[in-house]
Structure formats: structure tokens, C-alpha cells
């Protein structure tokens, strides 16, 4: 059996971040979903939110015993329990490049690929919603081709319109509303990922899937 180490760190006086040392893949993300469900039922846990192979716990009160909490989380993780989600598939039309995708060429430069190959690799894959966050309705997706891995931008943009398709590291996604971003933006989509008057307000949940279809390409 593989020996795994995990870390528990503070996000605030009322929040912790649990980070198991594990590969970034769907199998491990399914274990995160499982312990999120478990931890959500612990007393005093207000919310348990999956991140990208990590877990955030928000508390009503300042946690009393971090060591006990750490052991509980380790035990839940080490149990290997996993949550399989039969998610829906959402097809999203994308306009790659142009004004809405100002960093498409930067991504080609950073990856050593042609713009066409960046678009092909990005739109061929089927992505799984690993986590929902950053802003309302935003989906962190797993399934990016490793050849498209890029660093975050050193200076974040202060505002990027909703519907912007971006990538950074091994992650990609479409913004659900206008806001700041430190990622590389390569296209735009027209989808309402969050509607406060809809129930549930967020269009997708962890486990749902997305496929990007190129509608247009502006080099």
C-alpha cells in the first residue's frame, strides 16, 4: 500500500484546508468528493467544499482540537472511500481567440504548439467538473491535455468578462461572471452557469462533464 501524507492548514480562524499528497486525477478527486460528504455531517462544520484534490472546511466556531480534526480527516481519506457521480454532459460552443481570447497566442508560445493544435487539443477532450468555486457557478475542470499546461500570469487582470475560457497549470474553465483573473484566456462562451433564482443556482455540480465545441476561431 502506498504511504500518503496529508496536510491540514489554516485558511482563517474558522476554516481549514486539507491537502492530501496525491496525484491530480479523477480517482483521487472522487475520494475528495466522498470525504466532503462525510465531513459535512460533522458537528460544527458549516460547509465542506471540494477543491482540486483538496478539501476546505468552514466552521461555525473556531475549531478546538486541530490534531483530532487532522486524524479524523486522515482516517476518512485513508479509508479510500470514493464517490462516483453520474453527471450530465454539457456541450459548450466556444469562440477561440480574438478579443475574447487575448492569450491564445501566448499559450501557443508557452506550450510550443501551433494555435490550431492548442484549439484541437483543448476541444477534443471531455472534461469533468472537479470543483465549483472561485466565483458563483464557476467549474474547475479536470481532463486538460498535459501538453496545454501553462503558468499563471504574474500580474492578474483586474477584470475579465463573464464567459471567458481560460487555462492555467493543469486546469481550464469558463468564467460565469466578470471578474479578476490570473489565468491565460483563449476564448469565449455564452452560457449561464449561475442564476440565483434557479434551483440549484449553480448549473453544474462536481461530477458533471463539459465538452467544448469550436464555433469560430479568430487568430
Amino acid at each position, binding site marked *: 500500500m502506498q504511504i500518503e501524507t496529508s*496536510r491540514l*492548514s*489554516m*485558511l*482563517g*480562524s*474558522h*476554516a481549514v*484546508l486539507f*491537502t492530501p499528497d496525491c496525484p*491530480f486525477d479523477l480517482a483521487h478527486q472522487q475520494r475528495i468528493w466522498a470525504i466532503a460528504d462525510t465531513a459535512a455531517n460533522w458537528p460544527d462544520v*458549516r*460547509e465542506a*467544499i471540494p*477543491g*482540486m*484534490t*483538496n*478539501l*476546505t472546511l*468552514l466552521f461555525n466556531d*473556531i*475549531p478546538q482540537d*486541530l490534531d483530532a480534526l487532522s486524524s479524523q480527516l486522515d482516517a476518512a481519506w485513508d479509508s479510500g472511500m470514493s464517490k462516483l457521480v453520474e453527471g450530465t454532459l454539457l456541450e459548450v460552443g466556444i469562440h477561440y481567440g480574438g478579443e475574447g481570447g487575448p492569450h491564445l497566442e501566448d499559450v501557443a508560445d508557452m506550450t510550443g504548439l501551433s494555435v490550431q493544435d492548442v484549439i484541437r487539443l483543448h476541444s477534443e477532450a471531455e472534461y469533468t467538473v472537479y*470543483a*465549483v*468555486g*472561485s*466565483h*458563483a*457557478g*464557476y467549474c*474547475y475542470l479536470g481532463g486538460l491535455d498535459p501538453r496545454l499546461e501553462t*503558468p*499563471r500570469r*504574474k*500580474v*492578474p487582470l*483586474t477584470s475579465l468578462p463573464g464567459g471567458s475560457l481560460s487555462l*492555467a*497549470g*493543469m*486546469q481550464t474553465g469558463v468564467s*460565469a*461572471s*466578470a*471578474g*479578476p483573473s*490570473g489565468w491565460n484566456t483563449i476564448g469565449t462562451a455564452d452560457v449561464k452557469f*449561475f442564476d*440565483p*433564482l434557479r434551483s*440549484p*443556482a*449553480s448549473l453544474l455540480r462536481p461530477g458533471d462533464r463539459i465538452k467544448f465545441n469550436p464555433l469560430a476561431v479568430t487568430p
Partner: protein
Amino acid sequence: MIEILSIPPLATVQDLGRDNHWFQGLGRAGAMDPVALKLANMMLGNEAGAATLEIPLSPASFRFSEDQVFALTGAACGARLDDVPLPRYWAGLAKAGQELHIGPFQQGGRVYLAVYGGVDVPEILGSRSTQLRESFGGFEGRILRAGDILKPALTPPADFPSNGVSISLPELSQPRGETIELRALPAAEHDSFTDIALTAFWSETYRITPQSNRQGYRLHGPELTRDHVGELRSHGIIPGIVQVPGGGQPIIQLADSATMGGYPKIAAVISADLWRLGQALPGDSLRFVQTDLDGARSAERDMQELFSTLANDCKAMKRLQQGWR
């Protein structure tokens, strides 16, 4: 009704925030200075978290279309009711036709204007706070502007003290220009910063830059570099987290914080000290003071004791006032 005659950008309706939607990626919003919001409501006898106006800039002016009671807390702002200067942290009566003027801030960064029963706006997803990024909640999901008419949720009581009431807040008065001390916990990547960076972070001052708003404050001070770098997987973040992007200058996430992020985190400001940032302005200096969970608990107890003392004193005074009638 209260008509907004003039108001600078970025004034919003806020309550204590929207909980339990982190899983949908929806942040809390809510007052940048929850202490000032709660005290405004306390002086009026409202529920602690009733919706109020949060005014981050001046000048602003309002007209009362009928007799109302209202409270002003937060920044010292040279407020006047018609020509009569009003004290900071005050609640009292306005007659129909009177105008409230909020002038330049002399101390503090945000004024809270509360009305009886709270501002009457719909509750959406458990709160009346304005969610600026998602454009819902508060007053029509947007920042307030001249011509907007705000309605108090309740008719004012006939027995509100005609002279008005105020509270003294030695603990909350921070002279302009003094360094704001924020108690903080080391966060996940704390130990990956160089010794020089850590010494600087916990001892030097950081200035709030003009690139600061309800989402967060960008700071400027000694550059913070890490011994080992590498992209982090995106993870939960909350108001108070201090991130350090590649440029080496920290960002503190605040009330309109994102729910997830990926920059290295050096520290996390404890909840009990976040209101201090709500009253800070660009140009103000901050210093981070390292604490632990015991320190955070004791800070929270101090805050609760302050609130219960104020609430008891307000109640005792009200009983006496009613005794005179």
C-alpha cells in the same frame, strides 16, 4: 422613504453576508465592517444583521420623505442633519423633509446608515447583501445611485428618544495615520517563504494600495519571495486570507472574496480583526501580528464581551428613558 440625492460609486446595501453557498462558488458578500453594521442596528433596536447602507466614499446626501429614525456608524464623516452636525455612532430622529449630508471621512473608511427594521430589499439565497460580481441581492443587485428610493422595513416607534442616542467606543477608535495591527495565523505556504520574507512579513508595515475594493486589498511593502515555487492546485480561500502572487506583493481577500484560488498563502487574518480592514483606506499602513487559535479565540471573546456590554448599556438606558415618560 429615504431618497438618495447624491452618492459616490460603490455604495451598496449589505447585511452580515450570505452563508452556506460556498459549495456553489458564491462568496459571502456582507458588510466590510460587520461591527459597525451590528452597532447601527443595536442602537435602533433592529435585529443585529438587518440590511444597511454601506458607504465607502463621500460626499453623499439623502432626504427623508417622512419622520424616520436612523443610525450612522463607522467612519467619522462630518455628518449633518440639515445644518446640525451629528456625532459618530449616533441614532436619532429625522423629520419629514430633512436632509442628511455625509461629508469627507476624517477617520475610518466606511459609513453605515441603518433605518428602522433594516432596508426593505428582498432576501435572496438567505441574505439581503448585494452580490456585486453576480449582480443580485441588495438594491436591485447593483451599487446605489442618485434617485434611488430606500424603504425602511418597519414604521419607526413613537417612543424613540427624541434627543438621540450614541455609544462611546474607545476600543474601536483608531487615530488616523496609526498602523493597523491585524492578528493572523500562518497559512499553508507560510514555511515556503524565505526567512527574510517571513521576518519582513511579521515585522514591517504594508501599505494599502489604491487597487483595493470589497474583493480585496492589494498591499505594497517588502517583497515576499519563496524558497521553492510551483503551481498550486486550486483550493478554498476565504476573507482574510493573505495570498502572495508571483510579483511578491500580498493581497488580502475581503468580503467579496473569491471562494477558491491558487496563489500561495502566507497567512490568514482572524475573523475578529477583519472589520479593521473595513475601516482602512488606501494609503493606510498595516502590520501583521502572528497569533494562534488560542489568540483567535480570545480575540473573539473580547469582541463578544464588547457587544454584550454595549447591548446591556443600551437596554439599561432605554429602560430609564421609558421610565421618564
